[in-house]
């Protein structure tokens, strides 16, 4: 069995209106190759879940630039002025979420939880329209789980089944997103025969498809 796919096979997975999670933190650890292919496919009305909006010419910023994104769920957009402009023009819906909450919401989906209670955002605009639950006299926000149709992640090594390791701070949101989407596509920089069973970060059962690209 091989999970390796090519560009055509990847593009066949795309369609309008998908919710897509994209790994990376300010584009470090973002699978740029897959984003280029999404740009090429020109599918529209996407909901993108990513730590940030990237830069205008990098990361998910390329999808925003190409008018493919209807809604962006992210913790900040400060490095991408295009996203800010499109937002203020009403062309892009931006849902800002505290970074730790975003990580937990995605984790909750992958781990089958309905949500989590976090102290983050209490008494701020983040609590708007959310349920506040008090436990031991401390108020928490109920933040519900967040999944996607597709997750695009960047890893380091893979074996043929799709067991993955990551490289330095390019790890960030990639492992958790791998648990929370119907289909998970990983770009890996190296294919190896075996990975030490103690150091595998993402077990192969989470990975559907692999694209090999050295140097990404």
């Amino acid at each position, binding site marked *: 069995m091989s999970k390796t796919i090519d560009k055509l096979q990847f593009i066949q997975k795309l369609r309008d209106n998908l919710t897509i999670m994209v790994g990376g*933190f*300010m*584009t*470090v*650890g973002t699978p740029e190759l897959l984003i280029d292919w999404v740009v090429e496919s020109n599918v529209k009305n996407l909901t993108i879940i990513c*730590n*940030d909006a990237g830069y205008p010419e990098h990361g998910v910023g390329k999808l925003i630039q190409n008018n493919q994104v209807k809604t962006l769920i*992210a*913790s*900040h*957009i*400060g*490095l991408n002025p295009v996203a*800010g402009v499109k*937002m*203020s023009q009403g062309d892009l819906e*931006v849902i*800002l979420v*505290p*970074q*730790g*909450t975003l*990580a*937990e919401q995605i*984790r909750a989906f992958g781990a089958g939880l309905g949500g989590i209670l*976090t*102290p*983050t*955002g*209490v*008494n*701020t*605009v*983040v609590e708007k329209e959310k349920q506040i639950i008090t436990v031991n006299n401390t108020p928490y926000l109920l933040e519900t789980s967040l999944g996607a149709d597709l997750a695009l992640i960047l890893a380091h090594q893979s074996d043929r089944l799709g067991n993955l390791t*990551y*490289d*330095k*701070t*390019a*790890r*960030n*949101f*990639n*492992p*958790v997103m791998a648990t929370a989407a119907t289909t998970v596509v990983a770009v890996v920089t190296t294919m190896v025969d075996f990975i030490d069973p103690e150091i595998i*970060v993402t077990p192969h059962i989470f990975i559907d498809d692999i694209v090999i690209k050295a140097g990404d």
Partner: protein
Amino acid sequence: MDAKTIIAKRVAQELKHHNLVNLGIGLPTLVANYIDPNITVYLQSENGLIGLGPTPHVSEVDKHLTNAGGQPVTLLPHGMYFDSVTSFGIIRGGHVDITVLGALEVDQEGSLASWIIPQKLVPGMGGAMDLVVGAKKVIVATTHTNKMQTKIKQKCSLPLTAYQEVNLIVTEMAVFEIKNKKLYLIERHPDVSIETIKANTEADFIIEEVRLMEDIS
């Protein structure tokens, strides 16, 4: 000395041996330059590491090794990498001793606004909301004023990053401590009078014992 250096040097004095510390983007990053060489402090970067080292030489930049500002960094011996879930578990779980952040506004009850100016600047909160709620000690490192307007308010007017979580405010003029929702002036710059601080501060603050900021020049 410029305001930023004064602030960074003074904040550095708050860091104790073996503290786990998160320094925010911008001014707080400068604090790393003034940590007492006789102590060991572990710097966390919320994008996924503990053991932040100095900026690498340009020939040694690794595009997969950056801080939370996206700038190239290095990892010190005994440092390690982890994912965003672990990183914010460390932050929210109270395992970070000190977080240092900038401010748009900070108020006398310890509330902080730092992530949005509606209709004008909408960068987003990033990890700041989790850091301010989760860290054991929250230090705001900020210039006292911005375009002649004070940043030390009676009550923040901008949307909050967190409500009543700030413990210490360090500016180029003064150091304030927040205890039981009250603001105390505890130090002043040797060249700045209490009157000048009052004139540049909207917040009401209590004056009991005011020391001079030390070793900042």
